[in-house]
């Protein structure tokens, strides 16, 4: 058998690949497989989309006014006493 990665093996390497943590040889095998496999290309794109969507909060939360007041009064107490 050749040293070609199978699709089943490739999907387990995606995170290491995206983190730039694969050794050079492994990375080449990974990319060689991707270059001729539409299924794995879709898969890696899906993981990329998953990461992007996970990082996309619907609304950027901000500190609630109550919390901000509480923290500021904590700060003033501390500033006075210290």
């Amino acid at each position: 058998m050749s040293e070609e990665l199978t699709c089943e093996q490739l999907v387990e390497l995606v995170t290491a690949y995206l983190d730039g943590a694969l050794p050079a040889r492994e990375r080449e095998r990974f990319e060689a497989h991707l270059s001729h496999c539409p299924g794995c290309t879709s898969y890696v794109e899906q993981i990329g989309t998953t990461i992007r969507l996970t990082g996309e909060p619907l609304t950027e939360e901000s500190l609630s006014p109550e919390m901000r007041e509480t923290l500021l009064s904590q700060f003033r107490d501390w500033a006075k006493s210290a």
Partner: protein
Amino acid sequence: MEAPTTAVDERVLIAALRDRDETAFTALIEEHGPSMRRFALTFVRSGAVADDVVQEVWIVVLRGIDRFEGRSSLKTWLFQIVANTAKTRAVKEARVVPFSSLLDDDDGTPAVSPDRFQGPDGVHPGGWTSFPVPWERLPGEQLLSNETRAVIEAEIARLPDGQRLVITLRDMEGWPADEVCNVLELTETNQRVLLHRARSRVRAALERHFVEE
């Protein structure tokens, strides 16, 4: 005042805080408060308790700021305090996430169900039985819908603790790997394994969601 959108020069900020400068404190709580609360929620799972944790953390921060040596970044230090404080609260709530056990959450589950791949007798053993459908063809509004968001959040909430903590910091909060390792006391490899399991499960949940549509 507006929350700073770029990284504030930490040393200046720390010096200002030591001078009891309220503006510097406000900038800090605006910048980190919301993500500290979200992070606390990965341990305690109740908004009220997470609020308590955040308040407690800032007291610890102010009391410790004069002794802060800057060996880690201010952000790492802050989130370590959140982690410790939230953990203590979680213990009281009998919902413990000891860091030493985070690795148990590598459950060894394959990234993709084995039945998606051909067996040893297939034409291409280990190859896809049918290719994943590209999501690029989905309309953008479906990708970014509230429903999609809900699917992601529900799946993350179901993850084992270690996986949930790592994906929250890496992919929701956008932290680099080394900072996650510092705060959660994980090696880089362990961190990556947990992230891998977590991302794979979220992808699978999204795929089920999109395919069923």
